[in-house]
């Protein structure tokens, strides 16, 4: 079975290599023409092509084109490679808990900082997974979280700079079923635990980025796509839609969440060196419940 599949894919790759070789022979002429099409100074628009296309031939771009039109209309989205990066497993082993890391290339400053990072999962039923709002007090615009993936998809992190420029990083992830299949704990058990929170303080690992912390929230984050009961009744959507983290009253991070964040939302973030005081997290869900908790800053070993 394995052998058969691999063999087929090698044949495919060989064919692709031949095509590529033929194409490259013609490339110089093509490149010149293409350059003429792009007005000088216009930025490379990664929404038309990105390197991830290499791992996802035939990828359906309609979903992204629609989201892009809706969120950004005709704004230019630049290639994020010097600004923001994303790490995620190419093949996720658990579609309901796919770890992803988004990180800015350099720390936030008052003059130049990332105001928000929008996380888009093209093929999910509700593609805008989260918007992370940041400030110069956020230290480093870097978020580590866990998402649900419903079908093979591109995942995009779009950084909105304080000067209005947009930069995007993308990753292609193979996983499916993450939104539709409920976790094992029953509805009642999951709801009974909802709102329990924990904050851990981590060792900062980027110079000039300040401190690093992890906020953990117990919440089933029901997607509204999961079924319950013998009658096949859909569990209504019920998820964390807002998270606000402050330190000594100063805003560090706020998050608009959606159903694509995993059960028990879990977010790692940075905070600026100049902030002080206790941390407070205020979390609300779509049923209008609010959970609030504060923590003094601890060292890693004291967590």
């Amino acid at each position, binding site marked *: 079975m394995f052998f058969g599949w691999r063999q087929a894919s090698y044949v495919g790759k060989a064919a692709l290599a031949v095509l590529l070789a033929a194409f490259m022979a013609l490339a110089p002429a093509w490149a010149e023409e293409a350059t003429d099409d792009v007005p000088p100074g216009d930025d490379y628009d990664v929404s038309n092509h990105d390197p991830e296309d290499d791992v996802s031939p035939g990828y359906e771009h309609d979903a992204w084109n629609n989201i892009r039109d809706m969120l950004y209309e005709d704004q230019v989205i630049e290639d994020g490679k010097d600004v923001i990066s994303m790490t995620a497993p190419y093949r996720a082993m658990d579609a309901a808990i796919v770890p992803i890391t988004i990180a800015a290339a350099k720390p936030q400053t008052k003059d130049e900082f990332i105001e928000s990072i929008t996380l888009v999962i093209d093929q999910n039923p509700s593609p805008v997974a989260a918007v992370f709002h940041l400030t110069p007090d956020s230290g480093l615009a870097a978020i*580590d979280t866990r998402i649900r993936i419903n079908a093979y998809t591109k995942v995009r992190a779009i950084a909105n700079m304080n000067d209005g420029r947009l930069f995007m990083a993308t990753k292609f992830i193979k996983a499916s079923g993450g939104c539709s299949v409920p976790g*094992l704990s029953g509805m009642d058990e999951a709801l009974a635990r909802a709102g329990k929170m924990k904050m851990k303080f981590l060792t900062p690992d980027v110079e000039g980025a300040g401190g690093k912390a992890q906020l953990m929230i117990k919440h089933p984050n029901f997607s509204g796509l999961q079924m319950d009961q013998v009658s096949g009744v859909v569990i209504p959507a019920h998820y964390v839609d807002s998270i606000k983290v402050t330190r000594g009253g100063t805003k560090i991070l706020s998050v608009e969440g959606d159903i694509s964040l995993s059960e028990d939302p879990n977010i790692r973030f940075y905070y600026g060196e100049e902030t002080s005081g206790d941390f407070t997290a205020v979390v609300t869900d779509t049923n209008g419940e609010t959970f609030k908790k504060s923590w003094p800053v601890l060292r890693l070993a004291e967590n």
Partner: protein
Amino acid sequence: MLQRSVPGSPFTRERSHWLRVLTLFSPIVFLASTACAEPLAVEEVAEGIFVHTGSHQDANRENHGDIANIGFVVGDRGVAVVDTGGSYRLGWRLREAVKSVTDLPILYVINTHVHPDHTFGNAAFAGDEPEYIGHTKLPRQMAARGDYYLARLDEFIGEGQAEGTKVVSPTRTVAIGKPVELDIGGRVLILIAYPQAHTNNDLTVMDLKTGTLWTGDLVFMERIPSMDGSILGWKKVLERLRGMKITKIIPGHGPASASWPEAQNAQSRYFEELIAGVRPIIKQGGTITDAVAAVGKGEADKWELFDDYNPGNVTKTFTELEWE
């Protein structure tokens, strides 16, 4: 190569071109084989206890979902089937195996947990009108996940292979702390339901006459365990099983039978490695990705399908232990 679609799902997304070509002829194959479905090969591991061993693979177009250990116990009055295989067709072939051994009626069809490789043959026994029995949490899980598993079955086990497969829920359930006794004539089976372990709906079947315990997927041998419940819960259940008077077990995956408690040594060792590996990473502020890259490596050559399941197992262990 492998695609984990559902937590704990044994299904993959493998494809093979020549097999796809073969499946063009599947309607003919299907008609021919239902007419004379071959009984599943079974082995009598203890007096009156018959087990069919599945292959140590994910469900695919070659094994047609025949990947779990399934079988039956014959009493003087009738038969109790324990798990039914990954499709209607496999269930039917198991039924043929029962018929080749005895003419007694099939009184009970017991499912050890929700996973499709153990439950998707249930419908094949409907004509026998047995009592279908499972954990009190099984009906809900079947309802929640059944359609998802079913929708992908054809794709996983081959066109036509899924024909007739339905989600058949228990008609009688077993609650935690309230074992159920089934008298099938000359022998009594004790059904015990467990708290969250491999899944949240694990059930074992003890045959008092021979001291044989069907563990379902509470015990994996040779094939790497898959985590769909709680590692700490599972560890506790194993401790409890180690204290029980058991002559031999029938694992959910592995040989047809094995001696107890040695049968769970490898699995317990793997769990210890997962826990001992993940805890310090959490303590040091590491991530799931860090843990997946580092934990369990010492077990790599000790299990079938290690690379396919270890990352998922590490992930599950991490999300459980980080709340400690």
